[in-house]
């Protein structure tokens, strides 16, 4: 018998050691697999790093992965703060991009570029937030399960974009091939010395989200609602309204991620535009413990890993599946270390005291409270 308990807190040293340990375990395990398949281990890891940071192309690629991941994760984190499980990032990215695409098609072509871009970003925000508010409405008013609902909305969005791609918005200039026209050149986010200005999106949005959550009344309300709805009611908050606005912001920012991807990278819309960022961003948001600055940092590491894993296929001839395993193992180990950092697995009965031991050693206030009053909660 063993049970899992949440640790009350951990020291800085612990956090560093656990994370380094997790990272190393991931490296070691994937090293074993690489070796077992007959590839040179050391060289493979060097290419992994080289592929992520080793050259200007590598860094550019890493950044282009980083942008949608971080913006999406920032958007999702607002919903997660409210304990609203927005799993619909992928669909919100797509609908944000769809709205931006639609606007670019109806706007007069003579419109100045920056104005056009701004309208597309606003459209992206609206598209994403509407898509998020559909399940949000049902969750807020009828207490439906938003996890399933938002998840399903992803597939609906994919089908909708496929419909646009193959039928409604099919571009006749493509000689019978399906596909949607490219957005006007003036609506594309420009590059400055090789770096897309789209990088401004996460940099601005991280400040906005950080400020929103930490400094505004709305952010404060969002945090209180997430912690406990009864408390929010008690404090006189309009929980429904707060959730509505929170979900709208969350979906909107994710929608902006879609619009930015459309304008900064793909230039056209397809059902693959999300590229799985809506799902990866969930992991990022949690790895970053929903802290906005950390989200950008974690996105950077994940993007680097993603890019590096592709590069080892090229450089070392490692099959895609193996590169995925390496990526997965490193990610798993880091996630595992987070788990080990925040939770404690207890074997047997008497070791229950260990948990309290830890709490007591890190928490000076334990002295005047009752150390034995809390008995371990979850049993497996």
């Amino acid at each position: 018998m063993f049970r899992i308990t949440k640790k009350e807190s951990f020291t800085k040293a612990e956090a560093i050691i656990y994370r380094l340990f997790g990272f190393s375990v991931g490296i070691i395990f994937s090293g074993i697999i690489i070796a077992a398949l007959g590839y040179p281990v050391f060289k493979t890891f060097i290419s992994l790093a080289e592929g992520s940071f080793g050259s200007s192309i590598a860094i550019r690629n890493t950044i282009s992965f980083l942008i949608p991941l971080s913006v999406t994760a920032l958007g999702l984190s607002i919903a997660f703060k409210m304990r609203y499980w927005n799993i619909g990032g992928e669909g919100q990215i797509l609908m944000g991009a769809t709205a931006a695409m639609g606007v670019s098609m109806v706007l007069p072509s003579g419109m100045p570029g920056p104005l056009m871009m701004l309208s597309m970003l606003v459209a992206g925000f609206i598209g994403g937030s509407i898509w998020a508010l559909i399940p949000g409405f049902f969750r807020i008013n009828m207490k439906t399960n938003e996890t399933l609902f938002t998840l399903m909305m992803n597939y609906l969005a994919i089908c909708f974009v496929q419909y646009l791609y193959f039928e409604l918005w099919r571009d006749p200039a493509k000689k019978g091939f399906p596909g949607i026209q490219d957005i006007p050149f003036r609506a594309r986010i420009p590059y400055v010395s090789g770096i897309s200005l789209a990088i401004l999106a996460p940099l601005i949005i991280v400040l906005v989200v950080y400020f929103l959550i930490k400094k505004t009344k709305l952010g404060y309300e969002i945090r209180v609602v997430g912690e406990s709805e009864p408390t929010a009611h008690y404090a006189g908050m309009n929980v429904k309204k707060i959730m509505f606005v929170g979900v709208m912001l969350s979906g909107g920012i994710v929608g902006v991620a879609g619009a930015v991807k459309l304008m900064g990278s793909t230039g056209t819309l397809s059902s693959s535009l999300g590229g799985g960022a809506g799902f990866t961003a969930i992991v990022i948001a949690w790895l970053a413990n929903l802290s906005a600055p950390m989200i950008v940092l974690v996105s950077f590491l994940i993007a680097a890993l993603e890019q590096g894993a592709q590069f080892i296929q090229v450089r070392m001839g490692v099959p895609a599946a193996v590169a995925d395993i390496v990526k997965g193992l490193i990610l798993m180990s880091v996630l595992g270390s987070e788990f080990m950092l925040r939770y404690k697995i207890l074997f047997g009965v008497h070791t229950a005291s260990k948990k309290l031991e830890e709490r007591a050693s890190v928490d000076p206030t334990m002295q005047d409270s009752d150390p034995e009053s809390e008995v371990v909660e979850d049993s497996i």
Partner: protein
Amino acid sequence: MESIVRNDLHPAFSMRGITKMFGTVLANDSVDFEVLPGEIHALLGENGSGKSTLMNVLSGIYRPDDGQIEVYGELKEFRSPGDAIDSGIGMIHQHYKLAEAMTATENIVAGMKKPPKNSGKKDDVLRTDILRYASRSPAKTQQKIIEFSSRFGIEFDPSIPAGQLSVSQKQSVEIIKVLLRGASILILDEPTAVLTPQEAKKLFSVLRKMAAQGCAIVFISHKLNEIMALCDRVTVLRKGQSIETCTVSEIDAYDLVEKMVGRKINLSINKPDPDPERRVCLDVKGLTYSDSKSVPKLDNLSFTTYYGEILGVAGLAGGGQKELCESIAGIIRPQQGDILVDNERIAGLSPRDITQKGVAMCFIPEDRLGMGLVASMGIEENILLKEYALTKGPLIRMKDATTKAEQIINELEIKTPGLKHPVRMLSGGNIQKVILGREIHLNPKLMIAAYAVRGLDIHSSYTIYNLLNEQKQKNVSVLYIGEDLDVLIDLCDRIMVLCQGKNMGIVDASSTTKEEIGQMMSGTTLEELKRGVSYV
């Protein structure tokens, strides 16, 4: 009736030199504790004094770092709670662990083990019988259980689902369950916390009968009057050490408190006189509320409170206290009735509307961390909870909150490592002070405090009582929902008794008795009492 005492030369159990460390905290420091067969022995101590640790060691949940346990003269080493049960040690926890959908009988039988052959324990035959009948003849099983229970004067219907039993009946089921597992040493963790005075009295007689039949009983409590009334001896723990074991008849309550707290404490609450003007503050008229499952919670409830007085509310758990508080505070909407503060209608308004109408009111909910505070936030952000909405603009003003938080920490002597330290990591007393401090700072006309001292130690409780009295002296009207009738009588000016959402009557604290309140709690109205009718 034959005695189940096996060896009168030995204590039922004796713990010697028990030491248990949690990290740097010494929860038990070489504690000695010994209980004789046939004895009711109180274990007294404040929160954190090591009572629960010691009992968890005895019941096999923790293993001690040092020390010995002997049971009936035999040295034992418990590796698990099962070992302790096999040695005849049974614990009745504060929170009952019954399957609500199963009948009392099923709850009792489930998990019962067949006694080992020739174990020599007295009730082996009975236990074997019960187990044998359990699957075939519920009626016979029930019969056996009723027979067994009646030995101790315990009465309940073993055929009805546990969920339909009253709190005290559930407790009886737990006791029978433990006894039928062969326990002759019984540990009861604050067993009277959830009972009416009448039920508590009944429990005492049951415990006395059990002791008379040779059971050793450990009675954990911090209600001194109960210890004085029930127990033979008392062992006082303080800061992890056993301070003294004394015979109850040779000591008085004041000495006990002194031993427990380590210094003299004035146990009487200094009750200032209420404001003689008797200006009405809160006026509740015909309040009726049913919850979302249409269960009536408040039934045509009417009463008034006055400025400069404390109106106590007594009643059994679930008697409508929570709904009353939440209706007044605007958290739930009563279906009928009216609520006026200073002749201003607030029924149906949201908490924020009420504040914006200028009706200064504060509510200290019973669920501190789940409702009154945001558990993971620090004190300053919790101070913001009530005020952030009052400032202009879209931003929160942290500076004001910080100043106020520092002020409250100083005034109420809150112990915390910092303003941002999550409140859930504070001790219960400090958590309550944070809420009280915040609410007092709103300068309310009306203050509602629900179970304000629940889970607090004596010292913290008295601090809270004093704070409430200070409010009363500032002419605030205080509505105090309480559990401990002694405290209600000592603290409040008048006491309203609720039973199933109805007002049973309001009595004057200076002239009422616990018995009177207890009868009203069980459904007799004050008028009926005056006419000499009683249903209890």
